[in-house]
């Protein structure tokens, strides 16, 4: 399907959802649910909290959909709601952040190295503060600029950049190649991915 048609159908879905059509909204949710869920999962480090948080984002989006004016893309608008929801949860501490799930199922076809790697990444992300983690995810996973992150999180672009770099530094230190065995392991992992 051409991009134009997708956009048109999305506009049509938004229009129907604004008229309280829940089925149309669910179709919209199906398009972006994965991205929102993964962002929530790596932010709060818990599958259950990620579901609660992402469902809350969709509910808020549904209730606020009448205010959507197509000034930005639907996903940009949705991401803003997502970030605000995350920050609200961070303030109220209603979810337990930085409690990594070590028994998360990454799939039976993955190797032992992959599972170990997964745990390493999760642990390193859990070591970060919730703000640092969110800024890193927004920069790396969502591709937002430092200005956009600063605007969304109420800080300067410099602060956002510092947080992202700090997070990256910790991750890099975790996978730092030292001896030959580690180099070999790293090379193997790189080959797998």
């Amino acid at each position, binding site marked *: 399907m051409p991009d134009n048609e997708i956009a048109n159908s999305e506009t049509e879905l938004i229009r129907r959802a604004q008229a309280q059509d829940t089925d149309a909204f669910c179709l919209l*949710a199906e398009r972006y649910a*994965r991205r929102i869920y993964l962002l929530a999962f790596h932010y709060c480090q818990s599958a259950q909290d990620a579901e609660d948080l992402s469902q809350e984002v969709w509910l808020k989006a*549904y209730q606020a959909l009448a205010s959507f004016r197509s000034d930005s893309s639907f996903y940009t608008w949705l991401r803003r709601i997502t970030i605000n929801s995350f920050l609200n949860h961070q303030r109220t501490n209603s979810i337990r952040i930085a409690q990594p799930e070590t028994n998360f199922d*990454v799939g039976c076809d*993955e190797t032992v190295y992959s599972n170990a*790697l997964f745990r390493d990444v999760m642990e390193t992300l859990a070591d970060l503060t919730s703000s640092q983690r969110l800024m890193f995810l927004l920069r790396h996973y969502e591709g937002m600029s430092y200005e956009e992150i600063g605007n969304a999180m109420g800080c300067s672009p410099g602060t956002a950049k510092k947080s992202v770099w700090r997070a990256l530094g910790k991750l*890099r230190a975790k*996978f730092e190649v030292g001896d030959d065995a580690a180099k070999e392991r790293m090379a193997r*992992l790189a080959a797998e991915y």
Partner: protein
Amino acid sequence: MHNCKATTDRITELLLNRPNARPDDLLSKELLRCAECRNEFDALKETLRITGRVIEKSEPSKSYWNGYHARLKQQLDNATIHEVESRETTLILRFFKSSIRLPVPVGLALLVLFAVGIRWATRVSQKQVVITQTISVPVPFEVPVVQEKIVTRVLYRDRVRKRNESSTATSVVAKTQNEARPAALIGFKPLDEVKLTVIKGGSPDEK
């Protein structure tokens, strides 16, 4: 002149934007010139690539998404019902809580008018009460009263008989007695027999 810090900055931003990005010509020249920067580039590239892959791999299975969307649909339906209910209540609340913006002088004037109106209304009601008191006419109505009927009965004493008892004879007495006897006893004939009934047991000593 090569600057490691500036090169690392450029490497980091390039890889943060696209972990699989290839360095441009200028950056390639810098990396060829400095082994340290080259190592930094490789390490950062692997770190971000692995992190990105781990993030992507965290996605739950397809069966999870079916349940996820079903739960979302249910929540949306519940929210819609709840919203309709709350909208009805807010309409009523809005009516009672609604406010109108007014300039302060107009507001004060309305307040004074309101106070004067209340004062006038209370005075009028007081006057009406007075008028109703003066106009009221007592309406007579009959109250049934139980009156005792006084019956006066004149009793005549037989003074003639007393007077004649001492001086006249028995025949005369009889004659006068007949005269003094009330009309009701005229023609009364006493019986020859006298019936006397003695009721015993009147007192415990009686036998």
